[in-house]
């Protein structure tokens, strides 16, 4: 799977990650508000399969500050 993080402030890709937890930690460590991103999920072949729901991203916003040291 691939998690492509796109900023909805600039509509630029901030990174693509192989795991949701890594994507989440990267967003937090960049200091980007998870409310300001959209995350597209692709399968191993690169085909789009999903988009993370706003509720899931809201959960990202509550991640432990320890993730900043990831």
């Amino acid at each position, binding site marked *: 799977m691939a998690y*492509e993080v796109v*900023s909805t402030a600039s*509509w*630029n890709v*901030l990174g693509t990650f192989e795991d949701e937890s890594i994507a989440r930690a990267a967003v937090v*460590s*960049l200091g980007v508000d998870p409310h300001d991103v959209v995350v597209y999920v692709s399968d191993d072949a*690169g085909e789009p399969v999903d988009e993370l729901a706003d509720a899931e991203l809201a959960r990202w916003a509550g991640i432990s500050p320890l993730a900043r*040291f990831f």
Partner: protein
Amino acid sequence: MYGSVRVLKDSETGHVLLQEVPDGTVAYRMVQNNPPQAIDFQSHYERGRVVSLARPFRAYEVLGVSVFRDQARAQRLVDTAQRRAEPAWIARLVFAHGGTAALWGVYKERTGHLEVFGLPQDLLASVDSVL
């Protein structure tokens, strides 16, 4: 895509760091103005978004501008923006820098994402049409 163009590699790992974008490369970007304006081609950093320097090796991702080789990938962003009641179009770009300084970028074949590094007005000048 990058068969005969210049690349910059990490001297220790051999990983490609930057790739020259070939003349004539076609790409697509979501824009929020029609006709597109320079602001549509600003990086995350140029938009005034503060980012942490805790991961400086990812700095290129906030300094570059995202375009896609596949129109469907850009359309996905348009769909998201329109769902949020934001204006959105797709700009088709043709990078034809000819005798001028080369355009450099980072291309990820798996997602079709091309991160390009250029001045907003130069990228704007590459717009071929709005779809």
